[in-house]
């Protein structure tokens, strides 16, 4: 008679690993195994399921200890290859964050590159300043360091391993550069991130096995889960993890600096967690398929926190390379590497089999109910209505170019919104357009013949920062402020901004 096992202890699994009898598989293999053996069969057969992900994780960094110099210095400001590290912790400790930009090389080099340079065996220049004290008299230091010269280099990533990410697209008529990569105009593409069925939390969404103290693979090194990550939001399906490992044991294959064009520097991190198969619930959660994991496609064309979702899709849809949106087939592509995510899960499988990791249950449970809050803002940022010019000069589209010239002169402005007979905005003319028309008198004699028909506008309620992005992005110096009926109720010009904020709002 076959005895049905409904539960296994962690000690039994550890014993099997010690004896070399444990059966370890990756989360990608589980759906098929469960289909073939049934849930109870899978519970009997499989001891550990390994997971993996490899993607951009901005919230990463490392604590570094440089050792004491002679004479000693209490470093107050610290730079590594010109990238500032946080020096507000003890004399020779610093925290280098992945997204910090180089003071000299801007977007092309940052904290993530410093970490990759260290891990790949390159020398990194340390520069530090201090005010000097009786016990730490030294004021400056500059030295070249290899990773092996540091006492410790401990990666501690506040927020890694996001359970899933929403996919991104862009409904506007211009290209956007975002942390979700390049988004082509008119929903020309969809980008997504995450390894789907291989993702650690997705295989244990109730955090029964993942928690503080549990072993992990981090950038090629054996590491550990500290606990829940920052902005952890499991109630909404967006759990995160805080993880750590020794940077000296990491490999460049699983730690890569990256530059997202138009966005900045980030770090690609390889993360995996082995899950002991204790009961049927573990079997079920590790049998998750890409079809079961759904996310929203978010329109990044809307520049506010609550961006609208255009539709729901599964990772299976996203991975297929093509998704239907508004009746059209749109190409999708990932930003994270599924190939490397698999390598993480495979390496972890080998580690478990070799007994390189000690499988334990969480010593510190992760909250499964909380939801991250948006920021409490006590002061609202300025809106267009606070600073716009309320004197509106406009001109009818059928008027003569001459009268436009006169109006421009009188109004001390360089931009004249053009309206139709019902008062609706239909175009804009600038001093430049008029001078051009005067210098080359051709057939054009009415305003509508020379106006620009495509007008970029703003509204009274729009935050000034967003209006400023529009000015910069389109390289223009004025925005008509319109109401719902497209009637011009004001103008926002670079001059308004300059006067009111002492130039602070413009780069």
């Amino acid at each position: 008679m076959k005895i049905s096992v409904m539960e296994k202890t962690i000690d039994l699994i550890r014993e099997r690993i010690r004896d070399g009898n444990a059966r370890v598989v990756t989360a990608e293999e589980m759906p098929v195994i469960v289909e073939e053996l049934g849930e109870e069969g899978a519970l009997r057969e499989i001891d550990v399921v390994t997971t993996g992900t490899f993607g951009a994780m901005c919230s990463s960094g490392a604590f570094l200890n440089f050792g004491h110099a002679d004479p000693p210095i209490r470093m107050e400001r610290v730079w590594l290859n010109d990238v500032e590290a946080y020096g507000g912790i003890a004399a020779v400790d610093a925290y280098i964050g992945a997204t910090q930009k180089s003071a000299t090389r801007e977007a092309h080099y940052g904290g993530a590159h410093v970490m990759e340079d260290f891990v790949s065996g390159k020398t990194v220049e340390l520069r530090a300043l201090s005010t000097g004290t009786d016990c730490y008299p030294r004021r400056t230091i500059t030295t070249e360091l290899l990773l092996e010269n540091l006492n410790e280099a401990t990666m501690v990533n506040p927020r890694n391993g996001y359970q899933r990410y929403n996919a991104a697209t862009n409904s506007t008529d211009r290209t956007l550069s975002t942390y979700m990569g390049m988004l082509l105009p008119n929903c020309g593409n969809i980008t997504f991130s995450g390894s789907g069925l291989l993702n650690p939390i997705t295989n244990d969404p109730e955090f029964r096995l993942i928690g503080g103290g549990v072993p992990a693979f981090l950038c090629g090194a054996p590491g550990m889960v500290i606990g829940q990550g920052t902005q952890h939001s499991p109630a909404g399906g967006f759990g995160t993890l805080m993880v750590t490992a020794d940077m000296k044991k990491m490999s460049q294959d699983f730690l890569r600096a990256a530059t997202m064009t138009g966005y900045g520097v980030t770090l690609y991190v390889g993360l995996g967690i082995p899950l002991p198969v204790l009961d049927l619930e573990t079997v079920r959660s590790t049998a998750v398929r890409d079809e079961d994991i759904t996310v929203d496609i978010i329109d990044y064309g809307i520049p506010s926190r609550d961006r609208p979702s255009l539709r729901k899709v599964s990772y299976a849809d996203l991975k297929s390379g093509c998704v239907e949106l508004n009746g059209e087939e749109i190409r999708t592509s990932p930003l994270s590497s599924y190939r490397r995510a698999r390598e993480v899960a495979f390496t972890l499988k080998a580690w478990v089999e070799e007994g390189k990791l000690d499988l334990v249950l969480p010593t510190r449970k992760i909250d499964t109910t909380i939801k991250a809050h948006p920021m409490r803002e006590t002061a609202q940022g300025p809106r267009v209505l606070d600073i716009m010019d309320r004197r509106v000069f406009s001109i009818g589209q059928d008027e003569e170019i001459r009268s436009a010239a006169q109006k421009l002169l009188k109004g001390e402005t360089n931009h004249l919104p053009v309206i139709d007979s019902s008062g609706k905005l239909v175009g804009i003319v600038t001093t430049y357009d008029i001078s051009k028309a005067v210098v080359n008198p051709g057939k054009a004699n009415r305003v509508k013949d020379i106006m620009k028909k495509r007008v970029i506008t703003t509204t009274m309620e729009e935050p000034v920062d967003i209006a400023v992005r529009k000015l910069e992005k389109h390289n223009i110096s004025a925005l008509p402020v319109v109401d719902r009926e497209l009637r011009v109720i004001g103008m926002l010009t670079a001059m308004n901004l300059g006067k009111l904020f002492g130039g602070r709002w413009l780069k």
Partner: protein
Amino acid sequence: MKLIVTFSRKAGKKPIIAQVVRDTGVLINVERAQIDSSEGEALIDIPDEACTVVKEGLSRLGASVRVLEDIISLDESRCIDCGACISICPQEVFSFDENWKLVVNGERCVLCGRCIEICPQRALSQKEEV
């Protein structure tokens, strides 16, 4: 196959490409062109077997011609197979194989430059002269 044609416009605004189409009877597909007052550069696509006649025709009219082959070059040691280049390429040059490894189909490239700009690993570049 793809050719890059560079011509000076000092000698007047001769319709060089149109002329070669007429002289040779080869249908030339202009994929990209950049022309200002003094100089012009065009990327054209022609059937492989017509290469010699078209090249000769263009050279005779004073243009310089070079052949482009696999113009996009991939640094395998940098590439992490993320796939960010796939959906932004207008020519579908990039795809995954069954193991999620990036495959580059360079002959379709029209050198728009997008993938070079966005690759997070800076693994793509334009090959120098062939």
